[in-house]
């Protein structure tokens, strides 16, 4: 097993766990946590490929990870803002109960 492959495996595992969290849990906040985990796993992939790739000095993977962190922060802020807004409206964050289009 090469180092790159083991990093990729860890990233795949974290990604799968995040996906499971997003699909399996009822709470909207937990879904967001799952999405964050998936984004992080992708970042790990980028960094691993940057580290073991042919042109690390081009910084492509690193830059992608940095931008992804910035975007993830924005995503978390907006996502949690939405969760709070929905909670205020529906008094629940349970996704199984949010099955109506009408308010």
């Amino acid at each position, binding site marked *: *097993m*090469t*180092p790159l492959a*083991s*990093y*990729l495996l*860890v990233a*795949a*595992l*974290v*990604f*799968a*766990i*995040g*996906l*499971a*969290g*997003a*699909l*399996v*849990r*009822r*709470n909207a*906040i*937990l879904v*967001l*946590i799952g999405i964050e*985990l998936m984004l*992080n796993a992708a*970042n*790990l992939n980028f*960094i691993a490929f*940057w*580290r*073991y790739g*042919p042109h*690390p*000095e081009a*910084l492509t993977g*690193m*830059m992608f*990870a*940095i931008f992804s*962190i*910035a*975007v*993830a*922060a*924005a995503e*978390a*802020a*907006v996502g*949690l*803002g939405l*969760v*709070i*807004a929905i*909670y*205020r409206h529906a008094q629940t964050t349970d996704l*199984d109960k949010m099955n109506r289009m009408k308010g």
Partner: protein
Amino acid sequence: MSPVFYLVSAMTVAGALAAVLLKPLVHCALAVTVAFAGLAFLFLSLDAQFAGFAQILVYIGAVAILIVFAILLTKGSELPRDGVFSRSWLAGVVISAAVFAALGWAILRSAWTLPHEAAVPAVTVHDIGVALVDRYVLPLEIVALLLTAATIGAVIVAMHEKEGAK
């Protein structure tokens, strides 16, 4: 691979699993903090100092705290009566297992063709900074715009509804 890698990977995966499986939401948030910290250590072990510290600063310092605030603002710390898992949990588990299987298969298939060792890239923070305002200046500006929009959007979405609006 060094034992440190296995330890940190185990910590990351355990944190992620706990975040998904634990029932009380605050426990999930703390567990996901552990997973974030583990990922930051993995970044550091990949010689990506800047990304690792940015990960700690953004994810542990901001996102984890944000999640915690959201949990407490939505009374998420109370356990729901009808279970924490969705009705379609089986489908979710199957899908994610399938995704992991596919990814793992691809990685293991190509494991021997992947590069073995690479020299530690001599990239300083200075290089990253120069690259940010040179080659990646357009993405940087777009991220800045996105962050501004996200800040305004989050404030508006979460702002108190005015009396009479209801």
